[in-house]
């Protein structure tokens, strides 16, 4: 057999998604063909997805080999650790009164911590540091304002690229440039509504 790992995993993704969808769809009334309920179209869609997934699964058994890149044990470990840490921190944050539990902050904090933990092995940095940086932007924008958010996001994202670490001045320059540019475009010119300075 020539296993096509990519196809097998894709099929698994499709089928798992569809099964979860069908399970959730039990809450919805199917209705009749004339008066379709909210569950009718999801049912059709998920069954179709299961069908397509099975097709990909079967063909994936023969049209390989197409293996995925190997993951080191550290990468797997920190991926799981990141997921667990993210969920745990998010749940803890939701119980702390004040900033950590207000609005979507528990989600943001959990996502940020999870990405940071998963970014420990060097192989994951390209993946999780930009994600963490993006999350950080959402987290600090409203309380600390536009300029601080840009600064922190760029610093966090900069760690994803080794070239930056050798040139901290370059990062500082980039931050200054982006602060001025984004202020000019988004605040001065387009006038979108975000707090510019920290809101206390």
């Amino acid at each position, binding site marked *: 057999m020539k296993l*096509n790992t990519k*196809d097998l*995993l*894709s099929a698994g*993704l*499709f089928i798992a*998604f*569809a099964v979860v*969808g069908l399970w959730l769809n039990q809450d*919805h009334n199917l209705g*009749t*063909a*004339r*008066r*379709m*309920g*909210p569950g009718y*179209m*999801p049912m059709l*869609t998920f069954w179709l*997805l299961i069908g397509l997934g099975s*097709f990909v699964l079967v*063909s994936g058994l023969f*049209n*390989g*080999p*197409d293996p*995925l890149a190997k993951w080191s044990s550290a990468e797997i470990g920190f991926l799981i650790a990141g997921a667990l840490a993210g969920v745990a921190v998010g749940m803890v944050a939701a119980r702390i009164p004040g900033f950590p539990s207000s*609005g*979507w902050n528990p*989600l*943001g904090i959990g*996502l940020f911590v999870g*990405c940071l933990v998963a970014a420990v092995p060097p192989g994951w*940095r*390209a*993946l999780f540091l*930009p*994600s963490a*940086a*993006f*999350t950080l*932007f*959402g987290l600090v*924008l409203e309380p600390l304002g536009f300029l601080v*958010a840009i600064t922190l*996001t*760029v610093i966090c994202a*900069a760690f*994803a*690229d080794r070239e930056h670490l050798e040139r901290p001045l*370059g990062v500082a320059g*980039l931050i200054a440039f*982006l602060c001025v540019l*984004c202020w000019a*475009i988004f605040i001065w*010119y*387009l006038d*979108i509504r*975000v707090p510019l300075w920290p809101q206390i």
Partner: protein
Amino acid sequence: MDLIANLAHGFGVALTFNNLLFCLIGCIIGTAIGVLPGIGPVATISLLLPITFGQPATTAVIMLAGIYYGAQYGGSTTAILLNLPGEVSSVVTTLEGYKMARRGRAGAALTVAALASFFAGCVSTVLVAASGPLLTSVALSFGPADYFSLMMLGLIISAVLAQGSVVKSIGMVVFGVALGLVGTDVQTGQQRFTFGIPELSDGVGFVSIAMGMFGIAEIILNLEKPEARSVMSGKVGSLMMTREEVRRAIPSVLRGTTVGSLLGILPGGGAALSSFGSYMMERKVSKGRHEFGTGAIEGVAGPEAANNAASQTSFIPLLTLGIPANAVMALMVGALIIQGIQPGPRMVEAQPDLFWGLIASMWLGNLMLLIINLPMIGLWVKLLAIPYRHMYPSILIFCAIGVYSLQNNVFDVYQTVFFGLFGYLCSKLRLEPAPMLIGFVLGPMMEEHLRRAMLLSRGDPMVFVQRPISATMLAIGAIALIAMLLPNIRKGKDKALQE
């Protein structure tokens, strides 16, 4: 002839200093927001509505229209240079445009996009002027069953957007349809798959998905492979199109203009379908079809012409019926009502200044956009020479601000991160994001029309084959599906041997 007299009148209106000025302002703002990822014409026009209060209605509408089609021009820039589609229509442009940029033909891709848009804009403007009312009846003759079949056909042919396995990309289309189910059910008002999250009650945001799966995922992939991005920067290439490229692009532009003008008239999905309808056509009929997937110029020229043509003809339902075809048109209605003009079926007769002035201004606006954009291309392409380590944090920041500004809600920012991670996973599994986005956009409309058609036909599914428009489209869809699947199954084994 009436038409010429009317157009002359229109140019008289559009060529006044004030109207020209605001047309130019609209075009410049439009180009700017088109280039910025995330910030779209809907958000901008709603921000700018208040400043139109003080102006005459015609001037206001000319400026707002300029923003709208200017954004279509600008949108292709980030799609080509950075693989960042801001709108549904530019998803298709990323496919060949970004590949062209990676081959060092970014200049040519941007040039052809601008020229194709200009040409299509001019032609479709004439179409709006000459046969607007006639075309309205075409839009009116589309019933729910016909829309459903059109969407179905759209989804089937969207699988050709895939570069790899057809079955997997059909899977992604269906995946997208499933994602589109999230939110409030239009027919019953029930919440589906929202997990009690109010932000999801209007569905997952298109911009979040597009920014995540294209923008962020692309950054991650580039960071992972430092060698890939060194190819990218530095290789700017010539700005001009080669004679060969011009020759190949011309027929595509003509076909794209036709497809776009026709589909743009249909309210709802029309404009969204136009660009990838054209892509599909180019992929099947153009001379360069064997180059698709590696940066074929036809794949930029056709869809760009189509989406600009569609954005002009989507004014037809508004101008002839007073019915907005999309969110931007709804804002135009708002702007008109604030000005004390009720958009309605008789707007052509009741407001000749507005109608003909707008049409003339669209033509002038397209010309201005060309003049603004062509010299800019050199500048845009130079962006590629910026070291990637400066580039990617900037893209992240621009995406983040854009996503946030849509609803002023950080939930959208976090949602985008999830789609970024998912997009990364998909690229590792060779799952294409483009078909998924199309499924996501068309799926909900398809469901709506399916259920409405069944409700109106009192449960008789024969309505889909009895109506000639619907039956024709389903037949084309069936043929296309069979034609696509047959060789794919056969090819499966050959491919296995190759690798």
